[in-house]
């Protein structure tokens, strides 16, 4: 199958087991395809520095995976890896949390709050593209609303959202690509 994802916000919609998460991991080279290629702005991702690609194409995982420490530690984790220090407050606010969260222990937050920390952590790298793997799958209705609201408020970053939920795709994305049995249906 062949398809391209334009800038803006795109949802990849498909039932569980249709390879959505795997597809997302190919986009920032957490995995490589057995055959075929993934191109980013026309360049095969295998020709790019994987670490730089992952900073430009951020990923919010399906389940929160915070590093030990405070919310601020988590948000600053990515930039610190290559020696940059950032103010954690703007990304935390963008993710829909207020600054009172900064000093709290990330592992003690609710799953919904942790998921917004994951979003803030990805945003702290100022990525061009944000990959979202079922970002609300583990959340209740209220937390889902909060995360979706934060995502709708983002500017200047393209979103690629993987979901099995058609209405979430419609709420968050300008375009939807349906994946069925490994095929693309637009």
């Amino acid at each position: 199958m062949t398809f391209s994802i334009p800038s803006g916000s795109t949802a990849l919609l498909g039932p569980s087991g249709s390879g959505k998460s795997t597809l997302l991991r190919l986009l920032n080279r957490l995995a490589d395809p057995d055959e075929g290629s993934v191109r980013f702005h026309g360049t095969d991702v295998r020709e790019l520095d994987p670490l730089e690609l992952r900073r430009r194409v951020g990923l919010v995982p399906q389940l929160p995976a915070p590093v030990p420490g405070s919310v601020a530690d988590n948000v600053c984790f990515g930039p610190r890896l290559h020696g940059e220090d950032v103010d954690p407050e703007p990304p935390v606010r963008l993710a829909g949390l207020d600054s009172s969260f900064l000093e709290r222990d990330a592992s003690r937050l609710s799953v919904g709050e942790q998921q917004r920390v994951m979003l803030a952590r990805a945003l702290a790298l100022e990525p061009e593209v944000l990959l979202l793997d079922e970002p609300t799958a583990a959340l209740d209705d209220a937390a889902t609303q909060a995360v979706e609201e934060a995502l709708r408020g983002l500017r200047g970053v393209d979103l690629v959202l993987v979901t099995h939920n058609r209405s979430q795709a419609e709420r968050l994305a300008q375009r939807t690509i349906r994946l069925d049995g490994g095929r693309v249906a637009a």
Partner: protein
Amino acid sequence: MSTISITLGEVAASLALVAVAVAVSFWRRAELEQDIAVAVLRSFLQLTAVGYLIQAIFDTDSLWLVVALLAGMVAFGAWTARGRAKAVPGATGPILLGLAVAAAVTLGLVLALRIFKAEPRYLVPVGGMVIGNSMTAVAVALNRLADEMHEGRRQIEAMLALGATSFQAARGTLARSLRSGMIPLVDSTKTTGIVFFPGTMVGMLVAGAEPVDAVRLQLVLLWVLLGAVALAGLIAVSLGYRGFFTHAHQLRES
């Protein structure tokens, strides 16, 4: 140095205690009778063989034979540790290197600091202890590494997704693995003399040495072992984790 000699009859007499172990196992259905028999037989054959081997090496007084014997111990130790760390991909090289460097560096330092003379009588037993303890530490550390890489997969991949290198993503795991390999020896060094008498000291006391001499030799060996175990664990873990990642800083499929 005073010496003692033990007759084969005296060795055979200690089988009485083996009989106790077999009886306990049989009575309480621990089903270890066969293993105990194998263990007793193997210990007899292996130690007897190594006794003659060491005797031969002492007689020739050849340092090359010492090196060959220690190399054999490194190979056998690596093979054993490899069996216990099966879940670490490509661990043979890191284990071999860890054991070899630990043995070479610690023995080299002990000689350079003139703690022992460069004679088979010192190098063979000390080398054997260094390699044996390093083998255990490496096996424990790599086992822990495999467990953590498996359980922490999501966390590690989340760090890779933020642009972390394989090393940055595995750093915490490496620290905990190294720690778990070193802790048993650190703990037994802390409690030595209070909770148990280490083998060397027991051996020297039984053989008729002055307690002060026995204690000093034991201290030297314990402290040498700490360095050896740290080096072996560091090398095995620092090289071993790479088997879990690709060159593109991806986690391999497990």
